[in-house]
């Protein structure tokens, strides 16, 4: 039972692709602003590009509230998008409901973030799974076949023996068990793409490992394309082929998982990776446990101009406050890019990194970047 760094899956067909995906949630105003005419919106997701390929896992990490779940829901077509396009096998698709939506659902399935909320408290596990099977015509023609299909599903997510769980209500299951039921439901559709939104967040590490193993196995056996959203960057490193980082509704970095986690390019990614607890460097903790990650996440209603990370960025340059950074190829590994002006040589030459950095709260000094080309946070 291992998550081994397995051989690179052959670069394969794109199943689901997001092109310039954007979602703004209009916000209802309060009494005071009722009177003003401004209509505002939460810029939850802005201009996101992403491709899910057969047999590959894309991890999506980022701060909470950065729009990860929104991306997943947009991909599942549960929200109408504000802008951009979703392509299923290269064909632009927009489905709102009805038959088209159901057709889409058979191919793209989603596992919701919160297994406490995504299972209907009044229905048994049997009901949930039976419905999923029925809808996608995998229920077979008689009860025996249905029973077999149900057992097979639960077996797949390692809820064995199935009889022990089939007739339970969600509240009788532990968080981990629910998460597995949710996964099983998604699998019942036999989808091509699976959007898994923090599918293992509530589990202790050992169970978490089991579920990820399961997904990996399914991916390999059924050539599933998986979007794996998580806060656990380490698991992204182990589980995902590719990792993308979001900050305040925007993609800030993407690349091969190992590269992104071992040599993060974007200052936010670096902050993220540095913040991740690591028992192997306890010794160093005391010294730098205080000077990271200060500042609040930005308001998504009035996002900062330019790079959305600039108010918190220790290496912000004047340009960062005005110009939206474009994805820039880093060059260390193919496909690794970051949306950061630090990698625009012209900019760095004109404006020293950190020249526009906010002084940290409490007078803490921002960490000095060693070089313009950021070092990879190799384990100490």
């Amino acid at each position, binding site marked *: 039972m291992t998550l081994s760094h397995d051989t690179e899956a052959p670069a394969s067909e794109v199943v689901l692709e997001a092109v310039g995906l954007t979602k703004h949630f209009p916000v209802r105003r309060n009494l005071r602003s009722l009177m003003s005419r401004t209509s505002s919106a939460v810029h939850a997701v802005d201009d996101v590009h992403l491709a899910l390929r057969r047999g590959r896992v894309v991890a999506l990490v980022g701060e*909470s509230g950065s729009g990860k779940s929104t991306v997943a829901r947009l991909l599942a077509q549960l929200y109408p998008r504000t802008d951009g396009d979703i392509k299923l096998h290269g064909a632009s698709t927009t489905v709102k409901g009805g038959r088209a939506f159901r057709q889409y659902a058979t191919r793209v399935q989603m596992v919701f973030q919160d297994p406490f909320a995504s299972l209907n408290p009044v229905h048994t596990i049997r009901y949930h799974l039976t419905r999923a099977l029925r809808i996608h015509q995998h229920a077979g023609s008689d009860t025996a076949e249905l029973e077999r299909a149900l057992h097979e599903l639960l077996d797949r997510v390692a809820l064995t023996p199935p009889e022990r769980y089939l007739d339970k209500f969600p509240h009788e299951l532990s968080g981990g068990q629910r998460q597995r039921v949710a996964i099983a439901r998604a699998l019942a559709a036999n989808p091509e793409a699976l959007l898994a939104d923090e599918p293992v967040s509530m589990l202790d590490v050992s169970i978490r490992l089991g579920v990820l193993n399961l997904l990996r196995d399914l991916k390999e056996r059924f050539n599933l394309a998986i979007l794996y959203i998580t806060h656990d960057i380490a698991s992204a490193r*182990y*589980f995902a082929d590719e990792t993308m980082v979001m900050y305040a509704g925007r993609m800030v970095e993407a690349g091969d998982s190992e590269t992104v986690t071992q040599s993060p390019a974007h200052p936010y990614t670096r902050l993220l990776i540095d913040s991740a*607890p690591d028992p192997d460097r*306890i010794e160093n903790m005391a010294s730098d446990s205080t000077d990271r*990650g200060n500042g609040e996440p930005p308001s998504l209603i009035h996002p900062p101009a330019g790079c959305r990370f600039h108010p918190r960025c220790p290496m912000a340059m004047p340009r960062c406050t005005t110009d939206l950074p474009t994805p820039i190829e880093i060059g260390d590994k193919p496909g690794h890019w970051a949306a950061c002006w630090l990698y625009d040589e012209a900019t760095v030459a004109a404006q020293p990194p950190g020249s526009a950095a906010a002084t940290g709260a409490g007078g803490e000094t921002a960490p000095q970047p060693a070089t313009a080309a950021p070092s990879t946070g190799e*384990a100490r």
Partner: protein
Amino acid sequence: MTTSEPVLEIRNLNVDYGLGPQAVHAVRDVSLTLHRGEVLGLAGESGSGKSTLAYGMTRLLAPPGAISGGSVIYHPADGEPYDVLSLSDNDLRGFRWAETAIVFQGAMNSLNPVHKISTQLNDVLQAHDPKMSAHARNARCREMLKLVGISPDRMEAYPHQLSGGMRQRVMIGMALILQPQVVIMDEPTTALDVVMQRQILGQLIELRERLGFSVIFITHDLSLLVEFSDRIAIMYGGRIVEEAPATALYKDSLHPYSEGLLGSFPALRGPRRELAGIPGSPPDLKAMPTGCSFHPRCPKAFDPCAETIPALGHPDTPDGGTRSVACWLHPVREPVG
């Protein structure tokens, strides 16, 4: 910072859900000592009774929870120790928050949505020191918010106007406002990204240094615990199966379950290593295996495991005085409690 002086001693605590034959024994015979100024991490399988333990020792469990035995001895900074479980309702109210504050699992639901932050902070002060002037109270609230890094002008905000991280910090601030001796934190950062998590914990550690309270910190995130806590206790099936200084536990865990846990988490840095999970599934609290509840899943199980419940005790190792374990593999020198 850490002294060997105990501040909270949990002895043979038993907590059930429900009564009679229907009862689920969620916490069994737990003994645990919290020392002054230390951060005690509590980890373990989900459903192993961590939250139950935390709420049980302060008598905050919602029905059908009930404490079916044991005692929780509290040592005030000055004065004689007493048993929290036998306090009258009124005394208990006085004890709560002034001596032991809790940061609950979900900050979202911990704050009353219809009251301003200031009201909710003020409430505590008013309840515990009715004589304090409104002005002084207000000043104290501002101070607390500043302490947890929230600008005091957010005092008049409603909970929904704050982000999850801010709410979390408000709760931490509220927990510290009376300068209690013990702060219990139940998975305070699960929903947050690591940046925010670190920010909050960093502040907490800093505060502990300044104020000298003790912390019980519950989480699934072992790496976080290893990093932040002084000692770690591991729970399994309602019992504490191992308890040791953080580094000692990380480097050299004695109980097979702890080992399994440590072997399961992926490391972010360093070479990719093989991850070994723990086979099997968590025990059914209603039908606990006989003997050591971990034995059906334990790769090292041997004869006595299935028969007798191993007692938690100091093992016969060089550092045995500072740690304890409940496992037949490790002969116990001296029982705990």
